[in-house]
């Protein structure tokens, strides 16, 4: 009995002995080939050029993750060289081009307005009202519009404030204003995304691209002739704004904005740098297009603002600016469009659009 136990123990011991080299081999660290190569290069350099520490400093500047015991975002990166690129781009090309593009477009619009003035109706208003937007459509439009304007203004303060506002209004006021701007921008941003999604689904049906929209675009929307080419409920310009502005710019601005707004997902600095440059570029395009939309919707064209304010337009307005839509209404294809406005109470607006 004893001998058997002893025999088993000896066998186990022998097996352990045999295993030992294997275990030891497994315990030597499996080296990352890149690190091993870097270390080899450094050793070689030490022999060949003892006072030249180039490989070490190459590694320091490379921005690769190293080892540190301090926890935090990218604490293991010793030097991050992309920051300089981001700084140079943001402070020179991106902000300069974005700023001047906005200024130039405002000047162009101002000049156009001074020359042409508000575009009035050619015919006489009949006094008969046609329903253009439901209460829901107007609400979601204004919710998106207000959040858009807040984001645009606060964004401009963050990008250009220190060059334009700070010298004008001084330290105390600007400090207060920029803290407010940053918080508004960060909190209104997600709200804007929500509004944009709802807005997209609200208006997408009337924005499907039709052949006659090319003709409208071809005539520049009557920008120089003063006469609108026939269009459906929305013309080519409005559809461009919908697809290019709301959809494409909206999605890109939202995606890049969310990356910047929620830094708690350990996204790296280079991700945020790229997101920031994309955000500046696309937000500028968005604002440029938005300026055009706001101009046409307010002082550019008589009756346009009323459509979004009250939901109703005059029959003549519909006929001159959106002829196909008007024809559809006349043919009775759009239910509820000919209901008369029921005063400020808006009884009719409870009906579906």
């Amino acid at each position, binding site marked *: 009995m004893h001998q058997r136990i002893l025999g088993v123990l000896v066998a186990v011991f022998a097996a352990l002995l045999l295993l030992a080299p294997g275990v030891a081999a497994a315990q030597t660290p499996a080296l990352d080939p890149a690190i091993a190569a870097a270390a080899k290069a450094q050793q070689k350099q*030490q022999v060949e050029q*003892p006072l030249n520490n180039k490989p070490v400093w190459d590694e320091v500047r490379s921005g690769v993750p190293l080892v540190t015991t301090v926890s935090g975002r990218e604490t293991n990166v*010793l030097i991050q060289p992309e920051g*300089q690129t981001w700084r140079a781009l943001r402070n020179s090309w991106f902000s300069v081009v974005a700023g001047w593009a906005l200024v130039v477009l405002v000047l162009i619009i101002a000049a156009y307005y001074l020359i042409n003035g508000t575009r009035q109706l050619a015919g006489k208003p009949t006094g008969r009202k046609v329903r253009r937007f439901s209460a829901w459509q107007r609400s979601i439009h204004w919710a998106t519009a207000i959040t858009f304007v807040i984001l645009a203004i606060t964004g401009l303060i963050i990008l250009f404030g220190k060059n334009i506002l*700070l010298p004008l209004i001084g330290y105390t006021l600007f400090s207060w204003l920029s803290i407010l701007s940053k918080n508004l921008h960060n909190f209104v941003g997600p709200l804007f995304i929500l509004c944009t999604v709802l807005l997209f689904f609200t208006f997408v049906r009337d924005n499907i691209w039709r052949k006659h929209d090319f003709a409208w675009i071809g005539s520049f929307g009557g920008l120089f002739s003063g006469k609108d080419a026939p269009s459906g409920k929305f013309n080519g310009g409005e559809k461009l704004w919908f697809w290019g502005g709301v959809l494409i710019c909206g999605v890109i601005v939202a995606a890049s904005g969310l990356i910047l707004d929620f830094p708690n997902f350990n996204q790296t*600095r280079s991700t945020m740098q790229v997101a920031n440059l994309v955000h500046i570029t696309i937000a500028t395009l968005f604002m440029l297009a938005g300026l055009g939309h706001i101009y046409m919707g307010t002082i550019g064209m008589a009756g346009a603002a009323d459509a979004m304010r009250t939901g109703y337009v005059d029959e003549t307005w519909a006929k001159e600016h959106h002829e196909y839509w008007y024809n559809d209404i006349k043919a009775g294809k759009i239910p509820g469009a000919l209901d008369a406005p029921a005063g400020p109470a808006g009884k009719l607006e409870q009906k579906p659009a």
Partner: protein
Amino acid sequence: MARMKFLCDAERCIECNGCVTACKQENEVPWGVNRRRVVTMNEGVPGQRAISVACMHCSDAPCMAVCPVDCFYHTDEGLVLHDKDMCIGCGYCFYACPFGAPQFPQEGAFGVRGKMDKCTFCAGGPEPDFSEAEFKQYGRNRLAEGKLPACAEMCSTKALLGGDGDMIADIYRDRVLRRGKGAEVWGWATAYKVPPGKGTPPPAAAGGSKS
């Protein structure tokens, strides 16, 4: 006086993280904020080196260039300091800084950034010297006490030097001359094998034997 600088001798740094601890202790920085950190290259393999890094107080500071509210300023000593009351916590300085010096304590949900915090070279900030407000926001003002940054002064191997740039450069140069060699002294080549005809063993530790 020339400008203030930090110098980390990678041949001497033993990655003890004493500077990190000294900084936290001296300035009582908030949780999650590390004004200084030690980064190790080639951890565990030949050629391992550690470097202690914090704000380097750049002459052409990227943080200052991108700050949307211009809350940074240079002191006469060349230090880059900032006004926390003005900081909006946008994180741009963190994007731009090559050394990862700017830190943000989390304030509230969704990673909302608080006011940026970074190494002040133990020089406090734009509040009255030694005031409660200065200590709470920026930490100790050792420079106004006639002392140098805590991290450098307590470094056990004197790898981290801080102070007048010309003077610490002189100290470093003197050190390199005495140890006879520059970068490779620390490495394996000296510790275990001197290649024939290349370099000489470092001079015997004269200071240690004499005193």
